[in-house]
């Protein structure tokens, strides 16, 4: 057993930290305050080749592995969880299904620009009436000659306001239930595709989320991804990997909360001593650090399973469940340690506290993760 990262992974972690200090830290508060999407930062992220890390170089990716990708998401999220998430959603949810299920032609046409960071990708599964119960989706796709015609609407779609490539799940045969769902690649310019207004979220406000509406939206027949009826399986397989990414995002948020808490508790003086000298604070810090280390090992292990070609569905669910709850719990404690200052806008822990919550919700709520884990154990 070897817990050491490779030299390359260490260097990449340092380079993301350097990048974050230079380009993200100075703007993170402003992005949060004004729900601003920092396009200029993503141009630079693309130059760093961080938009398609785990995919082969022949498809425009960096040809690295999932563990390296997870480290990048962790470090980006440590500076700004919205930026980390945008890269995660793009890589794990939009690029992955094309990489795994796409034809060679689809990969050349859609995966390459995604991995190079020339275009953003988006993943459209959730609907106003179908969240955790994704199988009850109402969006339909009907073959009309050489074209699929999509109708319906998708809710809370991350990256959609800037995305140019949408992975869309729609029912091709409602009578078959989840087996009647299919996946499609929909380009931005497809007629009948409309993206709603950028939603005003509680956290990860530097990322973009909106409704996506399909009204007689027509795409070529060959834009079916995988086989007809394979959609639900593709969605679930994609989310398995996405969960490792969200675990990494949660990990970054939790680590940032710990960093801030350590710094603050050493500087803040009460009763004539830094508050770090009080046992109440020390225990909080010790618990935070221990949980974060555990979350890190779960997350890295899940990524390692992915890289080794081992099953990772349960591992990903465990990592996401634990890391997300760890982030939510410890950003709460970080605010507690900061007292009144932590409740004021502009303090990083206040932002972290809001950012953490979503990690317990998206790409499968904590309840869904428990279901997945239990199914693995009890079936």
């Amino acid at each position, binding site marked *: 057993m070897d817990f050491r990262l490779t030299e390359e992974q*260490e*260097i990449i972690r*340092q380079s993301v930290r350097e990048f974050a200090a230079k380009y993200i830290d100075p703007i993170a508060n402003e992005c949060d305050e004004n729900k601003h999407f920092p396009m200029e930062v993503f141009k630079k992220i693309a130059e*760093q080749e961080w938009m398609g890390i785990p995919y082969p*170089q022949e498809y425009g990716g*960096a*040809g690295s592995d999932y563990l390296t990708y997870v480290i990048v998401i962790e470090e980006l999220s440590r500076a700004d969880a919205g930026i980390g998430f945008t890269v995660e959603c793009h890589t794990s949810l939009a690029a992955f299904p094309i990489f795994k299920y796409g034809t060679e032609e689809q990969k050349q046409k859609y995966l390459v620009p995604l991995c190079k960071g020339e275009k953003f990708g988006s993943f459209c599964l959730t609907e106003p009436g179908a969240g955790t119960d994704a199988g009850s989706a109402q969006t339909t796709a009907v073959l009309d000659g050489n074209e699929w015609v999509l109708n319906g609407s998708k809710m809370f779609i991350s990256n959609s306001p800037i995305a140019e490539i949408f992975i869309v799940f729609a029912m091709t045969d409602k009578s078959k239930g989840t087996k009647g769902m299919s996946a499609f690649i929909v380009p931005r310019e497809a007629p009948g595709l409309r993206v709603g207004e950028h939603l005003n979220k509680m956290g990860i406000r530097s990322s973009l989320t909106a409704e996506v509406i399909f009204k007689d939206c027509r795409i070529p027949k060959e834009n079916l991804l995988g086989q007809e009826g394979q959609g639900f399986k593709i969605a679930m397989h994609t989310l398995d990997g996405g969960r490792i990414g969200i675990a990494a995002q949660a990990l970054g948020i939790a680590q940032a909360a710990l960093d801030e808490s350590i710094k603050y508790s050493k500087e803040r003086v009460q009763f004539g001593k830094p508050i770090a000298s009080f046992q109440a604070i020390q225990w909080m810090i010790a618990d935070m650090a221990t949980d974060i280390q555990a979350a890190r090992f779960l997350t890295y292990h899940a990524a390692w399973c992915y890289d080794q070609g081992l099953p990772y569905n349960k591992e990903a669910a465990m990592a996401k469940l634990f890391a997300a709850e760890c982030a939510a719990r410890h950003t709460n404690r970080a605010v507690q340690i900061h007292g009144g200052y932590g409740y004021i806008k502009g303090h990083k822990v206040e932002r972290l506290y809001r950012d953490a919550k979503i990690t317990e919700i998206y790409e499968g709520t904590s309840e869904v993760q428990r279901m997945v884990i239990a199914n693995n154990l009890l079936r």
Partner: protein
Amino acid sequence: MLKIIVCFKWVIDEADIKVSGKSRELDLSRVAYKISDYDRNAIEEAVRLQEQLGGSVVAVTVGPPTAKQSLKDALSRGPEKAVFVSDPAFDSLEPAQTAAILAEVITKNLEYDLIICGEGSSDLYAQQVGPRLAEKLGIPCATYVEKIIIKDKELIAERKMRDGIEVVSMPLPALVTVMPTINTPRIPSLKQVLGAAKKPVVNLSAKDLEGKYEPCLKTTSLLAATMERKRIKFTDDPQDIRKVVDALLKEGVIS
């Protein structure tokens, strides 16, 4: 076609240094290491010159075997080859030794038109290795350089001095030490990091050196810097501010 050598040092990241209590002793047990800050500017400048003028960049470092970690980091920043001179005894070299070892290694193993060093290292900041190396090699040098221009076999360098800018020219081969203001080092891209492992590294040890390089300096102590200050805090209330002004008067620093 310019043959460039860039020298760099693998140093303790000073941000990780902890101080153990009142003894002022430094706790280095959990420090991380990095390429010395200004040496990154040196590497960047070497790579930029190579991009402009063609040629080659070789990165050279001297240090203990653990400094091996630095090689991929340095190579990911653009040089095409590294030379690593290591020995367990090289963990606390002083500048005279480093410069002498570099001089022997460079003379025996490498061709060059230009050698670039950082103005000083971010750990010891002795600012000596560059000029000492030039002296040992018998080549002209310019220290504290903010801008480099190369024309044919001539180097023009802008040196930032206390009293202004001094522009100097000299024939190649030459050595320069660069200031952090000379450029902004790029952050290596992912493929550059992954590609570093494929680049050649020449490993040399103390056994490969003819010279015995004894230290000329002895460190007798290394302690945390302290400042004795009164550390009295006041509010912004006018009465408090008056107390501060009274204190300044009493100290005799305003009149």
